[in-house]
């Protein structure tokens, strides 16, 4: 219960950051082709998700998680996919204060994608996790 109340402490007020979170979910849904469901709970270190800690391995390869119905993205598009997932993960952080604002997100999306750190098929989900770690 204490963890629940800790969570409550910073979500007492419904604010823009709730939309940011939902945006993260929708973004992942677009990339994965389905609702991210368990993937999100495995990403969030929140009071809720930690209990339902998922089976999805964070070392899973990105290429296996994205929508398999269309060909793997290439070149700049691949950079875009990677960048967008990074942004989505930041939006899904359990602590609302750690999530970016939508203005930050929108401007990130306008900016030029950074080049891939390694080949697309070698990127794991862990590579895309935000640096900020949130403790429940």
């Amino acid at each position, binding site marked *: 219960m204490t963890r629940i109340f800790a969570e409550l402490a910073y979500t007492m007020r*419904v604010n823009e950051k709730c*939309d940011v979170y939902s945006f993260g979910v*929708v973004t992942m849904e677009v990339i994965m082709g389905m609702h991210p469901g368990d993937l999100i709970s495995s990403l969030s270190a*929140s009071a*809720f998700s930690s209990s*339902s800690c998922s089976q999805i391995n964070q070392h899973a390869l990105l290429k296996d998680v994205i929508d398999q119905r269309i060909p793997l993205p290439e070149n700049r598009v691949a950079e875009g*996919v990677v960048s967008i997932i990074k942004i989505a993960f930041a939006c899904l952080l359990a602590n609302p204060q750690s999530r970016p604002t939508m203005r930050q997100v*929108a401007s990130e999306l306008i900016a030029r994608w950074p080049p891939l750190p390694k080949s697309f098929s070698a990127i794991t989900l862990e590579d895309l996790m935000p640096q900020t770690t949130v403790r429940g």
Partner: protein
Amino acid sequence: MSFLQKPFSKFLQVLFFLLLICIPSFFAFPPNSSATSFGAARYVAAEGNKEAEALLKWKASLHDNHSQSVLSSWVDSSPCKWLGITCDNSGSVADFSLPHFGLRGTLQSFNFSSFPNLLTLNLRNNSLYGTIPLEIGLLTSLNVLYLDKNNLTGLIPSSIGNFRNLSFLNIAENNLSGFVPRVIGQLESLVELSLHSNNLNGSLPPEMNNLTHLMILHLFSNNFTGHLPRDLCLGGLLVNFTAALNHFSGPIPKSLRNCPRLFRVRLERNQLTGNISEDFGLYPNLNYMDLSHNDLYGELTWKWGGFHNLTSLKLSNNNITGEIPSELGKATGLQMIDLSSNLLKGTIPKELAQLKALYDLTLHNNHLFGVLPVEIQMLSQLRALNLASNNLGGSIPKQLGECSNLLQLNLSHNKFTGSIPSEIGFLHFLGNLDLSGNLLAGEIPSQIGQLNQLETMNLSHNKLSGLIPTAFVDLVSLTTVDISYNELEGPIPKIKAFIEAPFEAFINNSGLCGNASGLKPCTLLTSRRKSSKIVILILFPLLGSLLLLLIMVGCLYFHHRTSRERISCLGERQSPHSFVVWGHEEEILHETIIQATNNFNFNNCIGKGGYGIVYRAMLPTGQVVAVKKLHPSREGELMNLRTFRNEIRMLIDIRHRNIVKLYGFCSLIEHSFLVYEFIERGSLKMNLSSEEQAMDLDWNRRLNAVKGVANALSYLHHDCSPPIIHRDISSSNVLLDLEYEAHVSDFGTARLLMPDSTNWTSFAGTFGYIAPGTYLISFLIYVYKQNNTTSTMKMEGYFWML
């Protein structure tokens, strides 16, 4: 040998003169100091008096107060200390320089004979008028004569032939007329001769060939005819040479071929002839060359690798043949290339991409063929690209989108095929886009709607088909548009440039409609054809908004049941039973909506939600809207009607390309409905769940959809006042239009429900999209309002989550 030594001696002479100017006090001989020789002193005093007298006389001839105040230091009889006067070591006036002082007057009362030792006369940039007196030739020692930038008229006096020592002659930017006198050939020491921007005419005298020490020769903007002097660079010293904007004819001067110091050459707009590959040499210092609008021919076979400093090369409107040499890519300083309107053939060499500083590449009106090299993307500084009227083919490379500084892009009148690359939408600064007269097919990419600085757009005379992207409403800067001679159909965007465009801008298409001149209003037929092509669905499960409407209906019913009056509809304009669909002049009665949905006939149903059914409604104007009819109210909470109206009005006012527009709301006892913009492809959720549609959603479209949602939310959060929190973002509430552009729907409905949007008592949201903490809050509310059935769905989710 002699001509090599001579310039050097001239140079010393000039240097000496400069020293005279810079250290006047060193040379000056104060008239009141004790002279070593009484005789010399008396001579100097006599000279000084004579000079002072002449200067004071000239001063007296200047009638305006400004000139008098400038010359207020001209009072006693010792001119060496007067403003603008410098004496030599014998006490005689050597330098009379008053440039940029606004002096107004003539030179007629200036007694030139009083200044036998004058070396410099510099009165540039004043307001002198009248003629240059013949007596100026009495200044026989003169080295520098600057009278430019005045209002002098009349002829160049032939007495200038007396200036045997003159090095610098600048009488440009006056209104001088007539011929250049033959005696100019006697000024063999001339280093600078600037005659530009006058009304001089006639041929230049052949005696000008004697001026072999010239470093600067400016003849531009006169009415000169005849040939250019053949030997003007015989000494090899010429640095700046301009003869532009005259009527010179005949050959390029032979001596220019060996003229290694050339820095700037402007010969444009004459009738010069010659073979460009033979008449010019190698110019390692050349910075700017403009030979355009002449009759030059030949090929561009110069040793371009040797043109290290060339920034601008303008050879347009000549008869240059051959190909653009790939070696041109070695002149790496080039910033501007204009080879337009010549007879060039061949392809555009990809080596031009090495010109990293290039900001203007103009090659239009030649016979170039082949493709536009993808290497074009390397030209990140490019501001203007004009390849119009060639025979270029293939598709327009999407890499063009990398030239993100482009302001002008003209690829018109070529043979480009394929579709317009959506990457054109990356050219955020683009002001002019002309792709007319090609073979471009397919749909116009909606990304062009991102070009909010675009002022002119010409896509005419192609094979473009489909609808004009709805995103074009964001082309806020557009003033001129032409989309004629394509296969476009459907409504034109409701922006000024389209609505006010002449009919010719739309002719010969497959079925454009809208309220622009000459176009028919959008008809049923057009829209049906459109609808047959695509899956039409609107999604809407909007827990919050519907609940709100139910509450409202209940509230309104409660409020009005005694009066038995119908409740007026809400829209942009307020009048009973009607509302205004934005962009349409006429008001639309609620009966119209009922008719348009065939009295909410099942056949018009395009979606169903827990709290309402969505119908597709074709208005008499041809516009298609989505009408969400609410279920009859089961329960309601009292709500202030005025507050509600204000909220609706605020939501109607919100316009963003990524937000579904709410046109209006109508609440009657028997019917209550919301009228929304119709978004063709339905929800993201639906598109993703269908195998076929998901495959159409390629990565680019998906990234773009995400961007659209982000833009919509950024707008609601940060650009609306007060900020609007959506609270129910889900893939069901993100709709896709024909161009796969995302539109967020049901924004602000939660806000309507609960005006205090930061209150914790929120219960909007869809399970699976709500931030972790919010579930708990929902749960608490659920516990608190156990009977509120609207929370059930979320609560199921909550338990599932646990």
